[in-house]
């Protein structure tokens, strides 16, 4: 009896020692690298969740990849990247609370918010607390002096629109254009920018007043008056990926045979499921995952993202970049770890190879033409055409 009890006790003790050893090992492994917190403040719930989820998942997939391969080395110290997230529910008040949370956690670099009003609302908090943030919002006031803490994380519609319209005018003979937008600040401002760009190029705008509620589910009644104007090109200004296939489908079913385009990023699976072959020829802005330009690193990113979350989102083609820019800039100037002024100084001269594109593309800060200072990441302006369930690159351009 005593022997049995002793044996059981010995087993328990061995188990405990083993568990302690594993725990200690784990702590030691974690303690090997310091932690670098990067924030995300954006919308990850509700009707616009798709905007922010593709954003934050891009960051999480990239951070996991970096951490798995030993971390990121900045100024002789190796860090594991920890993404701290905050769901602002597309509410400017919540976005402010999110940015304040980032400040309390001592975070100096934040990706987001995803929309115009949120990005404008967080500006005072970011400037007061020494935070550089990378919004996906287009108001120029965020990026022009005296503002200096916001860095546009993508190509703005007033940059991509003229390039797309010029291409379609020259190559496809487009002469008339109609615009439709959701009744929200982002799509409306994008529509106004698009209308101005189209007019400047000599295109005739035949309809620009039709708008729809963001929660519209049936677009046939909405789009009918626009189709009656028979434009050569129908522009879906600032269209959400959830709405694009439905609008395309309604337009095609109503007999529209012209071109359809947008200046926002879309997802091929969503288009295929929602509109099928009716979406063939749809033109949108993408990132760098099309076979023609994607590097091996981009392919691995897509594979890792898919493995981590079950399904890739093509919107992430553009959203993979912000974290890369933050880390590469910090590597270029380690003093910027806790000093955003050093980060700003580095932005003027920063240059690093673009890991996601084939060829000699580089990461650099641009925006001099649009904002008078380098406050935009140089995401390649990749214009895609959807066909047979996938995107094909129509042309690639650069933003200065």
């Amino acid at each position, binding site marked *: 009896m005593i022997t049995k009890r002793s044996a059981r006790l010995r087993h328990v003790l061995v188990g405990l020692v083993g568990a302690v050893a594993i725990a200690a090992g784990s702590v030691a492994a974690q303690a090997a690298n310091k932690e670098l917190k990067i924030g995300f403040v954006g919308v990850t719930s509700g009707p616009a*969740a*798709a905007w922010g989820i593709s954003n934050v998942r891009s960051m999480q997939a990239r951070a996991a990849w970096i951490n798995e391969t030993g971390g990121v080395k900045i100024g002789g110290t190796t860090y594991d990247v920890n993404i701290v997230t905050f769901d602002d529910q597309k509410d400017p008040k919540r976005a402010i609370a999110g940015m304040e949370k980032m400040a309390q956690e001592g975070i100096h670099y934040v990706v987001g918010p995803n929309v115009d009003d949120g990005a404008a609302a967080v500006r005072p908090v970011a400037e007061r607390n020494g935070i550089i943030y990378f919004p996906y919002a287009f108001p120029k006031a965020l990026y022009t002096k005296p503002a200096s803490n916001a860095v546009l994380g993508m190509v703005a519609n007033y940059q991509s629109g003229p390039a797309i319209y010029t291409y379609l005018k020259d190559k496809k003979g487009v002469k008339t254009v109609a615009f439709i937008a959701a009744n929200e600040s982002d799509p409306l401002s994008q529509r106004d920018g698009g209308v101005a760009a189209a007019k400047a190029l000599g295109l005739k705008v035949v309809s620009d007043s039709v708008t729809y509620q963001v929660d519209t*589910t049936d677009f046939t009644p909405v789009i*009918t008056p626009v189709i009656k104007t028979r434009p050569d090109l129908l522009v879906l200004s600032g269209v959400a990926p959830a709405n694009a296939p439905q609008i395309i489908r309604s337009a095609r*079913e109503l007999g529209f045979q012209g071109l359809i385009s947008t200046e926002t990023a879309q*997802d091929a699976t969503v288009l295929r499921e929602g*509109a099928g072959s009716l979406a063939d020829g749809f033109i949108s802005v993408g990132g760098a995952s099309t076979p023609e330009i994607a590097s091996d690193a981009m392919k691995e990113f897509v594979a890792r993202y898919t493995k981590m979350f079950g399904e890739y989102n093509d919107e992430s083609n553009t959203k993979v970049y912000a974290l890369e820019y933050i880390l590469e800039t910090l590597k270029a100037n380690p003093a910027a770890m806790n000093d955003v002024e050093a980060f700003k100084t580095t932005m003027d001269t920063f240059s690093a190879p673009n890991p996601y594109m084939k060829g000699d593309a580089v990461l650099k800060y641009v925006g001099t033409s649009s904002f008078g200072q380098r406050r935009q990441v140089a995401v390649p302006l990749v214009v895609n055409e959807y066909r047979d369930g996938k995107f094909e690159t129509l042309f690639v351009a650069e933003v200065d």
Partner: protein
Amino acid sequence: MEQIIANGLYLGAQYALIALGLTLIFALMNVLNFAHGQLYVIGGFVTYTIYGQLGLPYVVALAATAISLALLGGIIEKFLFRPVIRRSSREESTMLLAAGIAFLLDAIILLVFGEKQRGVPKILNGVLNLDFRLIMPYDRILICGLAIFFITAFILYMQYSKTGRALRALAQDRTAAYLMGVDVERYSMIGFALGAMLAGIVGGLLVTITGVNLGMGGPTSIKAFMMVMIGGAGVISGAIAGGLILGMMESVGLSVFSEYGDVTYLVIFATLMVFLAIRPQGLMGKPWG
């Protein structure tokens, strides 16, 4: 004009079916089910999974959607609403519970089905085109027909079946129905399940046309409440009338006011406010409830 009427009828048939489930639950239990839109979204996702992903026939997917949503509705009534109604006589308790369930279902939808818009292959190809005066894809016509079929079946079921009679008795006077031997708890659960099933069926029908995403729940609930307010809360015929009126107003408004931007719902809401000020019980509701 033909196009506007056709769009209005199509929208109205869908809306009426959505409102039926909501008004049934209200009539039976005096519960404002803010999660009705989320049940509609789950219905869409179930059909998407079975028809769009697994490739089973659409009829099977629709039947499975109806059954699964009825089960979900029954579970929600039995384990969430029933204990709250038993313990609290305050109406706001069930309202808060319904709102909480809506948030919970939204979170579950996001976790299970993801953030993306989802769609399924068309169930019918081709478009009816009458010299561009009226353009209507055949699948819309079919879905409209199915919605009218389900509305008719629901009315007949309520009118002539034993369960329907019990539910109507419950809606008219809960206490009297109990005293007459109606198993109030059982029929409350059946009624809630039926309401959830109707929401799921609409989701299953419309996923073939509009697709589905997790953000559709809240706006669908709001529209359903508008229809119920127009027609009269707790009145079956009122829900149908409310749905048809809202569908027609939306179709006419989007055509007439297209030049002035997105003012259709502004006009609808303003009209609704004036209407409710004059007739707060709705078209067919009774002033005493």
